[in-house]
């Protein structure tokens, strides 16, 4: 365990995950390291296929074949999750780390009332008596902003926003210090999305848990995250405090992502997005995986992956020719 990991709630070190497919091994996550401090919100941003969900599933050890963790460690308060037995994992999950899935429609059981889905968790994981569990469920519904009168509803009787709130309530049932949220608002309309994000911020303030927030929408993270890590093709290419990252992006991919979201305010400017398409992960590009799409790429970029560098602001970047920052 490194000195810098001391005190971290979660420390992911050199994690690699491969999917063994008939076309060859796909390195979905490639030597990824990051930490989450108690009470911190870490945003993990990247496009589909960049490996963000695979990381979430690795932390909970819910990867299914053909995915295998091929290297690295994941430490929760110093304990290696990857070394845990099945029994230890059962005691660990939900109590310490809970997951909020992207699609609440699929995360909830359609034939079980929502109250039973909340109390189940507590009865199984904490052997809580039903009465007590129901009282806690009522309380949880109140904190996530659902009228407790709806406790006995079935999932189809709730709107998308309410279902997502119910899923958050279930994740919070055992008061875990870390919540992993995998695109929790992606399937929702903007107005509902805003309400849920506001609720998450308020809950985090009141309960003090940490969040690993996974999204493809970088623009959400500046309001929410303390730290942002940008993923591209299985690797973290840049990591910094959220304001710092927005004001001074240093990786060309991050800059390109920011040029992919039109703004609702400010002067209207032409945005270019990023040329090309995300790579085929069976045969990823050599060297820096972004080099075929990068306008600043030179010969060395195709040869060897650059070494990560960090400046005095704690701003990590993996690039031979990082932007000097400042202008966007």
């Amino acid at each position, binding site marked *: 365990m490194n000195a810098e990991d001391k005190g971290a709630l979660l420390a992911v070190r050199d994690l690699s995950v491969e999917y063994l497919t008939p076309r060859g091994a796909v390195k979905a996550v490639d030597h990824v390291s990051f930490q989450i401090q108690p009470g911190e919100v870490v945003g993990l941003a990247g496009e589909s296929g960049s490996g963000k969900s695979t990381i979430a599933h690795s932390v909970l050890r819910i990867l299914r074949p053909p995915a295998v963790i091929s290297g690295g460690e994941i430490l929760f308060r110093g304990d290696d999750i990857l070394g845990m037995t099945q029994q230890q994992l059962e005691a660990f999950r939900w109590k310490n780390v809970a997951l909020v899935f992207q699609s609440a429609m699929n995360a909830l059981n359609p034939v079980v009332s929502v109250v039973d889905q909340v109390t189940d968790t507590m009865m199984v994981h904490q052997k809580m008596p039903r009465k007590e569990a129901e009282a806690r469920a009522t309380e949880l519904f109140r904190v996530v902003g659902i009228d407790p009168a709806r406790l006995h509803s079935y999932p189809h009787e709730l709107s998308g926003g309410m279902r997502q709130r119910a899923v958050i309530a279930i994740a919070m049932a055992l008061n875990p210090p870390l919540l992993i949220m995998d695109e929790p608002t992606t399937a929702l*309309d903007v107005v509902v999305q805003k309400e849920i994000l506001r609720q998450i911020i308020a809950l985090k303030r009141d309960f003090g848990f940490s969040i690993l927030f996974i999204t493809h*929408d970088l623009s959400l993270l500046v*309001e929410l995250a303390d730290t942002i890590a940008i993923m591209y093709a299985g690797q973290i290419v840049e990591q910094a405090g959220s304001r710092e990252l927005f004001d001074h992006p240093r990786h060309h991919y991050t800059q390109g*992502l*920011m040029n*992919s979201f039109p703004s609702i*305010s400010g002067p209207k400017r032409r945005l270019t997005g990023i040329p090309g398409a995300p790579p085929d992960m069976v045969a990823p590009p050599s060297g820096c995986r972004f080099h075929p799409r990068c306008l600043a790429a030179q010969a060395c970029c195709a040869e060897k992956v650059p070494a990560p560098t960090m400046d005095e602001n704690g701003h990590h970047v993996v690039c031979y020719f990082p932007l000097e920052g400042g202008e966007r």
Partner: protein
Amino acid sequence: MTQSAPIVNEKEGERFPLLEVQGLTKHFPMGTFFKTRFVHAVEDVSFKVQRGEVVALVGESGSGKSTTIRMVARLIDATRGSIVYQGEDVLHTERTHASLRYRSKVQMIFQDPFSSLNGVKSIGHHLERPLQIHGKATTRAEIRSRVEELLTSVGLNPAWEFAGKYPHELSGGQRQRVAIARALAVEPELILADEPISMLDVSIRMGVLNLIEALKEENQIAFIYITHDLASARYIGDKTMVMYAGRMVEGGESEELMHHPAHPYTRVLISAVPDPHAGLRTNQAVAARGEIPSLIEPPPGCPFAPRCAQVMPACREAMPPVRWLNDAHWVRCMLYE
């Protein structure tokens, strides 16, 4: 004042707008034979599209925006209202189904490029068929050169290589470009694009939006661009129209509408857009409690009334008429009566 809007920025010499929709309404029947009820998916929608103009239609899911353009595309029948294309009321002159001519003028692009292409046909085949059906090219050589021209025009190079590929060999963005090329094959004047970028990877969305803009600029093609993303509506739409629960509640030139939203719903929608530029400074979103109301035989009045912070008794009685705030911006709201 009638709902017929004064024509903004009409080009010289054009007697009619390219498309004029009046009072378009769609009620879907539901329930049993004995007790039929109606879902009021679209209610009394009117708007105009000029040649070479991008009109963005924004709203949340269930607001009726897709149903509206599906009626314009003649994929579903309208319950009431008229669709006037270059002065011709097509629901009257082509009552049962759209003519080949109308279908060649008005094309549609769908949201999901993974299901809108046929997996067992080559990309070239997808483009040859409309050319043949609409008689845009006849000889083998003509068809081949037109297919390559089309693929090149949507940025799929080298064209001859793409023509031989199959949909599964292409990325989402490339497939959406094929869908656009297919729409272009028949030389349309109006393309209806239903959330064309929402299923694409973030980094390639702007490429598709910029392509739409280029087609507008270079070929004078008009677009109705459906989206739930106001920022992209502002980016690409000359005009923006806002729908809520089947009603069109506000419309106008995009910049004017985004900077001076008049309808309380539009204000809620705009304040909900994540904006990194304003995000940390102003996080004061306008709240709206509750959810979109049921569209099954809704009560009279403004559909936003149950959620509106500025609701008045009159709002629950009848839908307010169109009120022009200036020559580039209208709203349907009691606050302006």
